[in-house]
């Protein structure tokens, strides 16, 4: 509750800061300070201290897992703003507005980690998506940004309509919006109940960009300003995943027989589309958007089980994937163009930057001693514990090895192709900030337990 109230409040504060406080650096510092307050308030709630003790009538339920996920989202946003602050201020005239939108997105994300009612699911998803439409279109003069925004907006509200129809059908069948496992003793209206479940499943798949509802992702991520792509592909998407897992484990688990076909189909097609299409991309940004679809396929494995491996795995996956993506997008921002050619010979001129990029790419590909390895290991172990069948694991491994190809294509471009990199101005401090991310990834790759200790005590 603390986080939801304070993030919404901080959003309003940032809107006021937009005209009352001059100076982009100052506004960025206010945003960072606000995030620290948010993290502290959320930790306070973990220890039983409330800003306002509100009876939510069981519409929200605050679990330790949800609150801890919130903390991770805020920390990731902190790192994101800390690194990309200067880039954000190059877009548009009013930087503080973007920070306000980030806080509203975080408010939506905090609702999505704790909803216990389909109404709150809907509200959370909308609070999360509407600021994202604005962020996508924030580069007002660029036609690409416009196109991405309008596509995202039209498809996003279309999927909202589908989600609402699904919720309504479930209400029609059960007479309640509460998130609960279906009661075996009651004979529900079969058409409406299963229809509702399928519609919600489709809409949630759309929100997390899983195949066959991924078609918007490449265009939107490609057209949006790169700084905001970095945010959309990491934190906003992860919040969608937490909501999806939340609703799936409660409402769908009872029908495991039906979903035993649909879920693996969705996962395999997501992995297929993401990995195979990424191989053929000539733009690094577009390759990364397809790779984010492919990573979504791995994250969907968390739907399989309630085991510790699934819970811990999704958290580790979110953190490691977000860190690596924020890092690689931060490198891409500094490039003058998005093609692979821009990276030629980067290792000669900027050895440290090239090394850090290699760490991020290895983590995305899941090479050991980077965090990505344990993230993939946990997810696959969760599937095995849930008993979903060894073939799914084999398929996942094959696609993971395909992903190595296109990630290493970039490493090859940096180290083994001579040329002059098309890189813009680069501060020393910027590289060191990226080094902090790389160190975090390496630490999580050796001691993944560091992340989970707090989950239980």
């Amino acid at each position: 509750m603390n986080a939801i109230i304070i993030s919404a409040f901080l959003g309003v504060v940032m809107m006021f800061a937009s005209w009352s406080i001059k100076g982009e650096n100052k506004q960025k510092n206010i945003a960072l300070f606000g995030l620290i307050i948010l993290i502290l308030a959320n930790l306070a709630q973990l220890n039983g201290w409330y800003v306002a003790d509100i009876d939510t009538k069981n519409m929200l339920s605050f679990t330790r897992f949800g609150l801890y996920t919130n903390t991770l989202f805020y920390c990731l946003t902190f790192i994101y703003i800390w690194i990309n602050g200067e880039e954000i201020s190059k877009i548009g005239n009013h930087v503080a507005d973007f920070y306000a939108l980030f806080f509203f997105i975080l408010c939506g994300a905090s609702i999505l980690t704790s909803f216990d009612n389909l109404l709150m699911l809907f509200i959370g998803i909308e609070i999360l998506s509407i600021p994202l439409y604005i962020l996508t279109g924030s580069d007002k003069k660029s036609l690409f940004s416009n196109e991405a925004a309008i596509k995202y907006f039209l498809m996003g509200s279309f999927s909202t309509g589908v989600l609402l129809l699904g919720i309504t059908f479930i209400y029609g069948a059960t007479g309640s919006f509460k998130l609960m496992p279906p009661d075996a003793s009651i004979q529900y209206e079969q058409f409406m109940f299963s229809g509702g479940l399928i519609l919600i499943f489709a809409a949630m798949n759309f929100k997390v960009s899983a195949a066959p509802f991924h078609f918007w992702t490449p265009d939107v991520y490609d057209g949006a300003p790169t700084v905001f792509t970095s945010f959309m592909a990491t934190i906003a998407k992860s919040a969608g995943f937490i909501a999806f897992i939340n609703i799936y484990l409660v409402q769908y688990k009872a029908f495991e027989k039906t979903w035993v076909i649909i879920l693996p189909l969705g996962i395999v097609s997501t992995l297929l589309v993401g990995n195979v299409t990424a191989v053929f991309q000539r733009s690094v940004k577009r390759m990364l958007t397809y790779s984010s679809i492919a990573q979504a396929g791995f994250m969907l494995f968390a739907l399989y089980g309630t085991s510790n491996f699934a819970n811990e795995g999704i958290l580790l996956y979110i953190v490691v994937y977000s860190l690596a993506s924020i890092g690689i997008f931060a490198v891409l921002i500094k490039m003058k163009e998005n093609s692979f050619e821009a990276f030629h010979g980067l290792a000669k001129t900027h050895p440290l930057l090239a090394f850090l990029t290699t760490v991020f790419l290895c983590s995305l590909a899941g090479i050991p001693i980077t965090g990505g390895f344990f993230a993939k290991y946990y997810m696959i172990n969760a599937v095995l514990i849930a008993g979903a069948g060894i073939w799914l694991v084999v398929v996942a491994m094959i696609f993971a090895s395909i992903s190595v190809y296109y990630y290493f294509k970039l490493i090859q471009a940096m180290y083994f192709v001579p040329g002059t990199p098309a890189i813009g101005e680069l501060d020393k401090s910027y590289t060191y900030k990226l080094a902090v991310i790389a160190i975090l990834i390496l630490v999580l790759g050796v001691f993944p337990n560091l992340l989970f200790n707090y989950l239980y005590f």
Partner: protein
Amino acid sequence: MPIQYYIYLCLALFSIGVTGVLTRRNAIVVFMCIELMLNAVNLLLVAFSKMFHGYALIENATSTTGIDAQIFVFFIMVVAAAEVSVGLAIIVMMYRNTHSVDINFLNRLKN
């Protein structure tokens, strides 16, 4: 009136909305069709609310069952209004750059 009539009506409205989104090329018309989808859902929610309320009244004359669906409708309206404000702003922004609201124009990102 049986609830089936409402369900058929709402599904028909929703399908009209979906068809419009898939076939029309004018961004504003597409947008109106999305609103139509949302309003079809609103109508269905109110119908279900009335139905559950009717069932509950048989057992308890002062029951408030079904009121949550009507509150949900208000939430949908508010969120739809927020979406309209953002959506129209995006469409205006597109119009300023391209002097058209035709979404066929939007195919630059493909290659």
